[in-house]
């Protein structure tokens, strides 16, 4: 008798073959690898988000009776938001902030820098890139302090340069200051993204356009832009969302004067911690989340239509 068992013809032995996925892990082990990440995401992202939705339908407050025993108030926080002039103001300012500093400011400045630095000497390019990057990687508090010093009424750098001593920029033109500040702060990302995107444009196509006498604008429109459309969409989405959720305006103006620079994240903070209305601020947070989601969905749609 043979010691080895012959497989019966027509009935293959029930051997568990290697898993059919790319890494050959199988579902069990693959889940094991992602479980820690899923737990962290669940604990620090999904749970707080669900908690926010819950608080949003209560009258939970920072202090007082409702802090101890909040009661469910249904959608009244949301109906209140719909009629809240300060919330409308915050939405409008956020829109301005996103449009001015992200969609226009960072996008255009980032692209312009990437486009001009493409042919610059390596020394110049590296220096500019390092400076732009520095604005991006410095902590918000440090940067905010620098800009407060820059805009300061009495000893500000800007007033010294322009000879306009006594102009309180952050009080007289708070939104303009914030837009300039955030453009400066966030351009690095757009510049780097566009720098690498531009490398995907074949040089021979640029040269072809040059050979037929295309102007700089025609080259951008006909050759460069069609190649980097996906990058433009991705970049615009990311910087729009980041800017809409950005809290650093608070560090410069605290939303003032008189709510003139109170973007939605700043408003949420003021409502929650200055006003103590945690329930209402959670409702607004949820509305901001919905708005972000809508923008992201719109973007995904655009991207899919492209391909």
């Amino acid at each position: 008798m043979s010691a080895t068992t012959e497989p019966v013809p027509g009935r293959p032995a029930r051997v568990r073959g290697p898993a059919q996925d790319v890494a050959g892990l199988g579902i069990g082990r693959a889940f094991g690898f992602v479980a820690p990440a899923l737990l962290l995401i669940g604990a620090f992202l999904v749970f707080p988000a669900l908690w926010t939705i819950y608080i949003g339908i209560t009258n939970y407050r920072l202090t007082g009776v409702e802090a101890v025993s909040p009661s469910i108030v249904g959608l009244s926080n949301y109906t209140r938001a719909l009629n809240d002039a300060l919330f409308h103001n915050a939405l409008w300012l956020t829109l301005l902030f996103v449009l001015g500093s992200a969609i226009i400011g960072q996008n255009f400045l980032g692209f312009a820098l990437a486009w001009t630095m493409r042919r610059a000497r390596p020394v110049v390019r590296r220096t500019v890139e390092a400076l732009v990057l520095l604005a991006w990687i410095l902590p918000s508090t440090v940067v905010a302090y620098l800009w407060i010093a820059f805009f300061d009424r009495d000893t500000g750098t800007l007033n010294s340069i322009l000879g306009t001593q006594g102009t309180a920029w952050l009080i007289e033109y708070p939104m303009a200051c914030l837009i300039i500040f955030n453009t400066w702060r966030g351009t690095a990302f757009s510049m780097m993204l566009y720098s690498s995107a531009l490398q995907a444009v074949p040089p021979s196509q640029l040269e072809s356009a040059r050979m037929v006498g295309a102007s700089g604008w025609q080259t951008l429109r006909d050759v460069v832009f069609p190649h980097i459309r996906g990058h433009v969409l991705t970049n615009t989405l990311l910087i729009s969302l980041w800017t809409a959720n950005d809290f650093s305006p608070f560090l410069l103006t605290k939303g003032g004067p008189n709510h003139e620079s109170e973007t939605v994240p700043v408003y949420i903070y003021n409502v929650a911690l200055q006003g103590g209305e945690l329930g209402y601020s959670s409702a607004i947070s949820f509305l901001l989340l919905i708005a972000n989601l809508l923008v992201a969905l719109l973007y995904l749609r655009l991207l899919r239509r492209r391909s």
Partner: protein
Amino acid sequence: MAGIDIEGLATVYPNGVRAVDGLDLHVADGEFFALLGPSGCGKTTLLRTIAGLENASEGTVRIDVADVTRMEPGKRGVAMVFQDYALFPHMTVSENITYPLKVRRVAAATRTATAGRTSSELSLQGLLERRPGQLSGGQQQRVALARAIASEGKVLLLDEPLSNLDARLRLEARTFLKKLQRDLGITTVFVTHDQAEALALADRIAVMQNGRLRQLGSPREVFARPANTFVANFIGSTPMNLLDGAVAAVSDGGSVSVANGSLPAATGSVPAGAEVTVGVRPEYLTLSDGDVNGPSLRGEVVVAENLGTSSLVSVDCGGTLIGVTVPEESEPAPGTSVVLTAPEQRVLLYDRESGELLAKQPAAVG
């Protein structure tokens, strides 16, 4: 239509490399002109300098008499086809072809007419609404050519026009390209590293090395009488035999001693006893098994390589390997004793030191 005049042209890169180094060249009106050389010889840089994509550091480029040395590429009246064709992937074939006209803001009706005319010239009918990604390599190349032609330049520049095609298509495209150039009569300069391509297509060839011109002449001249050992080595699908030798006799029916024998040679003004490099193409050597009159070499067949309609036979002549091509079916077996000889005008003498062709023998072209 226009000729190209290049005088003392040098193109120096920022790192100091002189890619084109003091070049004089004239391309006649309507000529099909090849820039040939190994990679790094400066041929592409020269083409790009003519196009205006590289700045000339010294010298001048004239197209149709006008000095274009400092002119923008778009204003030179030059059309160029890039090695990768550089078609715009997001535009249809028709839009690609008429892009030069769109840049000049030509009316849409005229553009459509041009697209129709040019595409039929290049047998692209029926493909006008496709995108480049849906075309074969050969079709893409023809679209690139159509775009260049539609721009109505005075001069057409082609960078390695056949190198992106597979071997079979390359021959087809070669014939097509030559016929197209003949039909259009447009002055055309193309760059290639493939000597067979240059020989097949060009009216004249400029062989380049290290940014300098090594020989300028018709394919026949360049093949039959290379001006130096560099060109001799570079041209020809089987390498030229370059052998150490010495002039044996200078009178009528002069000869050079090579290896273990001698070959007839028109020695011209080269004195007897001069040490030279003897160049003779395998195609011009004849192989026989009996005695021959006049100077000849004796040897033994080492190996025979089949080249299709002929075979390259390596013959050991007293320790020196000499290549000779023989027609198919007359290929000798290895070990056979053979005799080699060549017509006098096919044996070229080069200076041992400089590698330049000696003895301005009467040209044996024809």
